[in-house]
């Protein structure tokens, strides 16, 4: 199959959605310039016109609110936030408005909006350019949250998000932009709420989100060389996460490590661990391992960044611990 980078796959999803659905438009800060978006939006304004692909003033709140208002009256907007940190200035339209409107008005009004934010860690950018806040938004009823880890999913999840009919947070990771993978041409969907098994195994289940899914693949290879057979699940959708697949895998292996490059406290790993312990405790043969960021803001100095971020080695260590 044709190979594409993760960033190209995101761009292609935008382009095909814009081409096939006149209700789709793209807005946000940095839409006209690769400075923030890399190649993920490159040239869309030239291809589809600056009326449908428009860069915006530094007004996250009004821009996101306008996308939500347009969605309520029948458009299918994709609003772009160059960093997830910046998106917090739009917390009211996302959390108070978009998440609530369907419920609040008894299903008579819906909000088919995609709110896209880029997670861009490292690079000595520090505390306000590096946050991965999926748990904050997964907490809110009415929102859906997806985090693609492969080029195939990057395209298919964006298509599914635009067609879903609900507010969907689409969180992509700048560290994955250059990764290559199979990407079909044309429109296709990766269903929201469905996780994927990246590697089948019998001894330990690893559940990983976004960038950590690629780290977990490396960890699985290292572990295989040591004779440890892991099953790797790429969660793909943070909310609603795929209980069926997670429970069937843990039911088989009896051991679980969850890797999510966000903070430990109140995180998605905590949510999954609590659900597994609460619902299928009898299946567990060992305590659940969590590989997450320590509960401190992202530092700038590269020396501290090395201490802060987690990766394949941490996953390997956690798997070995649950096997002790």
């Amino acid at each position, binding site marked *: 199959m044709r190979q594409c980078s993760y960033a190209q796959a995101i761009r292609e999803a935008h382009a095909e959605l814009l081409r096939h659905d006149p209700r789709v*438009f793209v807005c946000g800060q940095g839409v006209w310039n690769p400075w923030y978006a890399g190649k993920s939006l490159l040239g869309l304004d030239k291809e589809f016109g600056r009326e449908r692909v428009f860069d915006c003033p530094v*007004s996250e709140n*009004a821009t996101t609110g*306008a996308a939500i208002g347009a969605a*309520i009256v029948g*458009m299918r907007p994709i609003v772009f936030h160059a960093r997830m940190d910046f998106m917090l200035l739009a917390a*009211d339209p996302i959390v108070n408005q978009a998440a609530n409107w369907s419920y*609040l008005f008894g299903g*008579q009004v819906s909000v088919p909006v995609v709110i896209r934010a880029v997670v861009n860690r490292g690079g000595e950018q520090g505390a306000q350019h590096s946050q991965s806040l999926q748990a904050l938004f997964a907490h809110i009823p009415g929102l859906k949250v997806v985090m693609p880890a492969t080029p195939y999913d990057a395209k298919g999840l964006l298509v599914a998000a635009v067609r879903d*009919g609900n507010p969907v947070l689409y969180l992509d990771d700048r560290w994955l932009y250059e990764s290559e993978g199979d990407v079909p041409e044309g429109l296709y969907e990766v269903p929201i709420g469905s996780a994927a098994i990246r590697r089948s195994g019998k001894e330990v289940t690893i559940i990983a989100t976004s960038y950590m899914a690629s780290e977990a693949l490396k960890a699985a290879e290292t572990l295989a060389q040591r004779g440890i057979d892991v099953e790797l699940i790429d969660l793909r959708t943070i909310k609603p996460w795929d209980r069926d697949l997670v429970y069937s895998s843990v039911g088989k292996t009896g051991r679980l490590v969850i890797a999510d490059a966000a903070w430990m406290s109140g995180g998605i790993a905590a949510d999954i661990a609590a659900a597994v312990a609460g619902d299928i405790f009898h299946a567990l043969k060992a305590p659940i391992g969590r590989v997450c960021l320590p509960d401190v803001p992202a530092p700038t100095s590269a020396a501290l960044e090395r201490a802060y971020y987690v990766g394949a080695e941490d996953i390997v260590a956690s798997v070995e611990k649950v096997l002790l």
Partner: protein
Amino acid sequence: MDATIQVGGAAAASRSLLRMMLLIRLVEERIGELVSAGEIKTPCHLSIGQEAIAAGVCAALSRQDTVWGGHRSHGHYLAKGGDLPEMMAEVFGRVTGCSKGRGGSMHLVAPAQGLYGTVPLVGATIPLAVGAGLASKLRHEPHVAVAFFGDGATEEGHFHESLNLAALYRLPVLFVCENNFYSTHMPLSARRLKDNIVQAADAAGMPGIRLDGNDVLAVLDGTRQAVAQARAGAGPCLLECRTYRWRGHVGPAWDLEVGERRRSELDEWMPKDPILRLRRRLIEEGQSTNELDALEPAIRGEIEAAVTFARESPLPDDSDLFRHVYAPRRT
């Protein structure tokens, strides 16, 4: 009830405006009584004294024009053509309510009439109205979007962000500030150095027009001009409609202890009652007093029918709690 005035002469149009203002007044007075009696529990914010703005603005709109409101939006709902029994049932928390019993007084909706939602986060629907204007522009439709908000909302960042966005993209949006000089218990003078809300329009690069919000004909005329400009592609407009909230922030009380000048302000503003003013004018123009007097009992009959409908409607079922968190997929 059609929000658009079927022009059968200026006299009929004015009588229709009077009827709408009277409907809003009497509905809210009745809601106030039912709150005092303990029958309505949801927080109800009354617009008594401010009826000319909802009635005047909405009379200048077509059904497809959208309206977005806040916590004090009974008037916007009714003036845009929302169904009275459904609103009353909503305030009673009944499943037959316009929001199926999930909204109460602060969350009203009538999508078929172009009222897409009213919510109490101050100014929250201002950017949403900008989005509706953006949709009109992208779809090449003539519809305008109207954001109703109070003076308090002009202190929020999203008000200024929204004005800038709408002006920059020349969107068909009317920003209607109902300046009643109070945000909850706080008078405008305690929140702002100058009484200059309308100047925000100038900073964003759009016309800002100050209107007598207690003169329904002035509101109608000002809105018609702004709507015509917006439909012609000239972009948005800020209308500051100056008025006064007779009752307290929430509920039927008069809140005389709030602010330093509530008593003297009421003495100044109550004679400017928009309903009395229009009525006097219509009588001067030769309309029959008897005909105008006949409006009130007819409206009261409608209101009692709505209250009966609400009282007799079922409460939502427990299983309803889990419905509509997500909308069904609509590709």
